[in-house]
């Protein structure tokens, strides 16, 4: 077993354990903090895949903005279900069964695919993934239109969020 495989297995176990704690912990603040550690494990996975920009964006945007937004939302809505009462609905066993079935189904579907044991080819010398990514995002031949649509979507969503959450007394 190479070092990379050991690091991958440790990262995957850490991330899956944190994800399990996110969906099962009773205290929502703890769930949000477990989400931070799961997101950090995913950032390490990006680094293992040599997607450096994605790893940095994961830490800055996901952990720095989205997870903190979750913690704010939990603190703003905390009054009514602190720790008392069931945190799972009455059909939680159905959700557990369905998610196990989805995992088993995906597992067998992937087993039957011929590309599963593919290994990564070496990154060519002098290939700069970050500048290639920047070119792809703003080049008219590539993805400038989806990029601009995503920006407009983000602006619209944030204006909508401000409007929906603003306290307007009728």
């Amino acid at each position: 077993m190479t070092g990379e495989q050991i690091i991958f297995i440790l990262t995957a176990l850490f991330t899956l354990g944190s994800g399990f704690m996110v969906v099962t912990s009773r205290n929502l603040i703890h769930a949000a903090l477990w989400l931070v550690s799961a997101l950090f494990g995913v950032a390490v996975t990006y680094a293992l895949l040599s997607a450096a920009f994605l790893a940095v964006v994961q830490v800055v945007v996901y952990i720095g903005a989205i997870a903190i937004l979750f913690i704010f939302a939990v603190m703003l809505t905390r009054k009514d279900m602190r720790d008392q009462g069931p945190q799972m609905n009455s059909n939680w066993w159905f959700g557990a069964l369905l998610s196990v079935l989805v995992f088993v189904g995906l597992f067998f579907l992937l087993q039957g695919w011929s590309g599963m044991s593919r290994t990564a080819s070496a990154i060519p010398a002098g290939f700069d993934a970050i500048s290639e990514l920047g070119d792809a995002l703003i080049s008219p031949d590539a993805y400038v239109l989806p990029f601009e649509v995503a920006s407009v979507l983000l602006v619209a969503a944030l204006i909508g969020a401000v409007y929906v959450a603003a306290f307007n007394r009728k």
Partner: protein
Amino acid sequence: MVPLSWYLIFAAALFSIGLFGVLSRRNAVAILLGIELMLNSVNINLAAFWRYGDVLQMTGQVFAIIVFAVAAAEVAVGLALVISVYRRRNTVVADEINMMKW
């Protein structure tokens, strides 16, 4: 070298955990936490297919970045809705948010 299958199975497991959270938590904020886990597992798949496919094509990473933007938009709107509902109904339990149930 880690084979592609490890990444895909890891992402499938993370997706299933997130799906369990979405289907079985009562708190609306916890449901959104589950959705975040599912979006992250999809992003792992996109990055893995970029790395194990043609590295010179940046499609996988571009898709992952657009998923980041959509996830940020989704969280902002979702949490704003939760806070708005909490102000009006004083609850964040998904079962009790039934104003539109006929």
